[in-house]
């Protein structure tokens, strides 16, 4: 057969890798800043734009979508071309993808500090950016599938299976979770409410971990690890089994983020059992990675690239065992809402994604510049600094997570809470937070070793923009499916492969989400639940803007230790007007589900101005800008209308008098504040926030609170 000459596009890989390194530094720096803010709240310098609640999502978005995202795209563009023996389908799409993605990142970096957020974790970006993500993602998918279709390699290599699954699944997740109703250019409400929103969000959130941080990286591992080790992949059969099992099972596990919530028991149990069933398929990836190194372990000793990859794969194995353990309800009862989860997430992020990325970069840059790595010694040093950073990060997090959870649960022999003051448990773990930030600092420091080493490497080589290659074209496959050879058959048919993957990943989500949306008995109605008043609604949007949900849960779990501390546990029926839900996933501060009426207006007024005036030692930041910024009431009408079209029963025509109502309620609160000796201006944002906080959970506080 005639050999065809063509070239691989290295330019696009270089661009993505460069962007990845830059955003890694930015994302880690933001992470370091918020880690220190947890014990020095003044580090926000009094600026709202760099306060914890606003830049915590900036950190997660930067490291997940900017750092890891760009590594994925760069790695896919490098490896896909080579295992398909074809240049990328379209150079234009490649560049469109690159610049579009970077633009999205910049938009995120601007909008999140401004408080423009949907508050849904890892999906914080507002609707115009969501649309842009969809367009760019489809461009990436088209480019990838196009390349696969015009390939010169009969079979599709396992790395590309993972890339295909990543593309189809992220498309589905992003679209379904981002269905929202715009109320202006930079604000929208999720169409789902309460427990339904929670289920959709964590179906998305969990699978963002699965299909953005895991499957594409497994794909990268299947290319770069055997390449770096120069060893064959251990078991093709294992690849098939763990690939299909992984993508099928992963999608079911979302509800393990909602254990002991008001999600129905059946859905919680599905989350638990599917998480346990995920252990083996996840370990399949680790096994194939580690056993590929069989016979090459002596090289691991003096090859830093393999060291990075081995520890990355091991970290992957550890966190994919830990995750299922945390999905057991008795473990989750302790780990949830604590630093344990943060530690777990960072074993995955710093260990698996981070170290794997570094290994890939150290291998790839010399290759693309046609030279050797500038300094093995520096790479080795980086390896040890980064690994030590992970140790210093993770161990204190486990320690503080477990310590705080046990303190929350401890009763005295007389049957009352041993640590009734939440703050006491916070202060107990602050030293752990100091050590954690040191670990993060070490890891961050390692980045500069990498940058210096790679720049020096590039300098000593010369960049190969287009790498020449040749291969013969393939003939169209016409073979029949033979017994036991189904997968071989499928590997030659990328479109069928993608469709089958799509079907496989749709099942789990459909089985959980459709009944939750369609069957009423899953959410028993509570008659006393009423829609928010206009002022409360505006206050809730300020709560969302400031990212309060980053530190405060609104979910009292059915444990005696929580109902004693906070009040009645959260019921599914309470969330029917909650667009979006605000349960949160971390309790750095106390739960706020039953905050309404617990303290007077004055307490909140003084507390938000300076939390330490009411709670000495508190690590909550001050919110002075709420006292000077005027509440934007022009949006009230649109918001009421939007909520009504989402099913919140505001009376017809209420939007016309909503603003009047809002002003009336604001005046009442201001008057109460004045009576208690605090002159306040009724048009400021703080008044709206207080009204919201005072409403929280009061609808079913029942007759106790109704007595006032």
């Amino acid at each position, binding site marked *: 057969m005639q050999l065809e000459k063509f070239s691989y596009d290295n330019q696009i890989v270089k661009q993505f890798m460069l962007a990845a390194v830059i955003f890694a530094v930015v994302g880690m720096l933001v992470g370091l800043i918020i880690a220190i803010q947890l014990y020095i709240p003044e580090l926000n310098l009094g600026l709202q734009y760099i306060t914890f609640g606003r830049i915590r999502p900036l950190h997660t978005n930067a490291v997940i979508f900017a750092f890891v995202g760009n590594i994925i795209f760069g790695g896919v563009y490098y*490896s896909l071309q*080579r*295992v398909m*023996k074809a240049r990328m389908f379209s150079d234009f799409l490649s560049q469109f993808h690159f610049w579009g993605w970077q633009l999205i990142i910049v938009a995120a970096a601007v909008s999140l500090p401004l408080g423009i957020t949907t508050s849904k974790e890892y999906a914080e970006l507002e609707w115009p950016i969501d649309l842009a993500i969809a367009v760019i993602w489809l461009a990436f998918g088209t480019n990838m599938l196009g390349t696969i279709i015009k390939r010169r*390699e009969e*079979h599709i*290599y*396992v790395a590309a299976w993972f890339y295909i699954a990543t593309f189809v699944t992220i498309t589905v997740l992003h679209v379904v979770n981002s269905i929202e109703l715009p109320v202006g250019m930079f604000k929208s409400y999720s169409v789902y409410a309460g427990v339904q929103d929670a289920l959709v969000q964590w179906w998305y959130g969990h699978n963002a971990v699965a299909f953005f941080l895991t499957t594409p990286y497994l794909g990268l591992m299947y*290319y770069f690890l055997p*390449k770096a080790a120069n060893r*064959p*992949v*251990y*078991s*093709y*059969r*294992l*690849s098939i*089994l763990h690939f299909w099992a992984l993508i099928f099972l992963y999608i079911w596990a979302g509800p393990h983020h909602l254990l*002991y919530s008001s999600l129905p*028991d*059946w859905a919680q*149990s*599905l989350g638990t*059992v*599917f998480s*346990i*069933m995920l*252990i*083996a398929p996840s*370990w399949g990836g680790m*096994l194939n990675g580690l*056993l590929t190194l*069989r*016979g090459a372990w002596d090289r691991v000793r003096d090859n830093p690239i393999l060291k990075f990859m081995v520890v990355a794969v091991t970290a992957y194995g550890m966190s994919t065992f830990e995750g299922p353990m945390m999905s057991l*309800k008795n473990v989750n009862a302790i780990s949830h809402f604590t630093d344990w989860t943060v530690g777990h997430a960072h074993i995955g992020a710093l260990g698996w994604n981070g170290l794997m990325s570094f290994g890939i970069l150290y291998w790839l840059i010399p290759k693309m510049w046609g030279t050797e790595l500038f300094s093995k010694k520096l790479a080795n040093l980086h390896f040890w600094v980064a690994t030590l950073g992970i140790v210093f990060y993770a161990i204190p997090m486990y320690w503080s997570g477990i310590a705080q959870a046990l303190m929350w649960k401890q009763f005295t022999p*007389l*049957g*009352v*809470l041993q640590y*009734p*003051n939440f703050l006491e448990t916070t202060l107990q773990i602050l030293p752990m937070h100091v050590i954690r930030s040191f670990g993060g600092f070490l890891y961050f420091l390692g980045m500069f070793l990498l940058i210096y080493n790679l720049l020096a490497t590039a300098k000593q080589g010369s960049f190969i923009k287009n790498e020449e290659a040749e291969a013969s074209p393939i003939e169209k496959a016409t073979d029949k499916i033979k017994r036991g050879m189904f997968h071989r058959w499928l590997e030659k048919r990328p479109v069928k492969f993608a469709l089958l993957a799509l079907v496989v990943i749709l099942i789990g989500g459909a089985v959980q989400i459709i009944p939750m949306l369609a069957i009423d008995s899953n959410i028993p109605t509570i008659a006393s639940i009423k829609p928010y008043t206009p002022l409360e609604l505006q206050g809730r949007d300020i709560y969302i803007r400031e990212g309060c949900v980053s530190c405060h849960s609104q979910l009292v779990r*059915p*444990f*005696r230790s929580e*109902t*004693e*501390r906070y009040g009645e*546990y959260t019921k599914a029926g309470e969330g029917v007007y909650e667009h979006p839900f605000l349960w949160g996933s971390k309790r750095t501060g106390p739960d706020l589900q039953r905050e309404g*009426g617990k*303290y*007077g207006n004055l*307490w909140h007024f*003084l507390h938000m101005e300076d939390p330490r*005036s*009411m*709670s*000495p030692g508190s690590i909550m930041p001050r919110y002075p800008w709420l006292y000077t910024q005027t509440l934007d009431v022009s949006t009230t009408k649109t918001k009421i209308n939007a909520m009504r079209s989402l099913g919140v029963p505001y009376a017809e025509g209420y939007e016309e008098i909503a603003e009047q109502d809002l002003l009336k309620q604001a005046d009442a609160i201001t008057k109460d504040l004045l009576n208690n000796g605090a002159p306040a201006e009724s048009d400021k944002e703080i008044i709206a926030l207080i009204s919201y906080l005072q409403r929280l959970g009061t609808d079913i506080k029942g007759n*106790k609170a109704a*007595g006032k």
Partner: protein
Amino acid sequence: MKSINKIWFSVFLAAISFFSYSQTSAATEGSVDLDAVMRTMLVLTIIVILAVLWLAIVYSEKNDNEGDDFLRPIRLVTNYLTRLQPMEKEKDLLFHHDFDGIRELDNRIPPWFNFLFYGTIIWAVIYLFVFHVFDDGQIQSKEYLAEVKQAGLEREILIKTGAFINEESVTLLKDAATLSEGKDIFAKNCVTCHTADGGGLVGPNLTDEYWINGGGIKNVFKTIKNGVPAKGMISWQTQLDSKKMQAVASYVLSLQGTKPANPKAPEGTKWGEPKADSTAAAVKS
């Protein structure tokens, strides 16, 4: 070399039997306390350390363990579970094709992997059956009710034995120990609203004779216990046990007549003398 293994093995066995003996003796005394937990942890740790040492010795490079009696069963099990092919046979397992130079091997999936995989699937089915087929699936509400019921039973016993005080049985205490405990509780929980000297800030002045919800130990205890949500006074009964509430109520009343730095204006009604007498009478009785 064999003899060294045997020595270690006997040490290992002896250690296990010794610690399991000490465990059973601890259990028969019926002390289910932290010590027992610590001892168990210690035993487990020592067992693991010994096991690792033993393995380190038998697997050390210098130790030619071919044909070793102790290792044969372990090797059999390991071989059965992993089915690792010797490296020399690798070329027979290679697929002919390569992807950009990457080859693949046709190794079988390790049996232990399959055991784990199918084991977790079986576990999952059992889990779902136990909770959702053989039971009604109301897992967490039942768990919660059981927990609360248990706590209620324990509370009843505490009330019967007098360990628990309520607003009917509470008395004003004036001894120094109680007042100093009350002062500590006050400093920790109350000063943000009532200020350190009781002069009042968010909450009312506690040093004057005016009370919004009634003065005297019984009313003050009740206010602390149930709170006054409408006014922003929170209920403390889930946070302070009844003795602590008695102590802090007694301390609050000891502030009567003191002169705070920035007293808040009086609120509520003046608490009459006669009722103060009845409080005093209650102390005597």
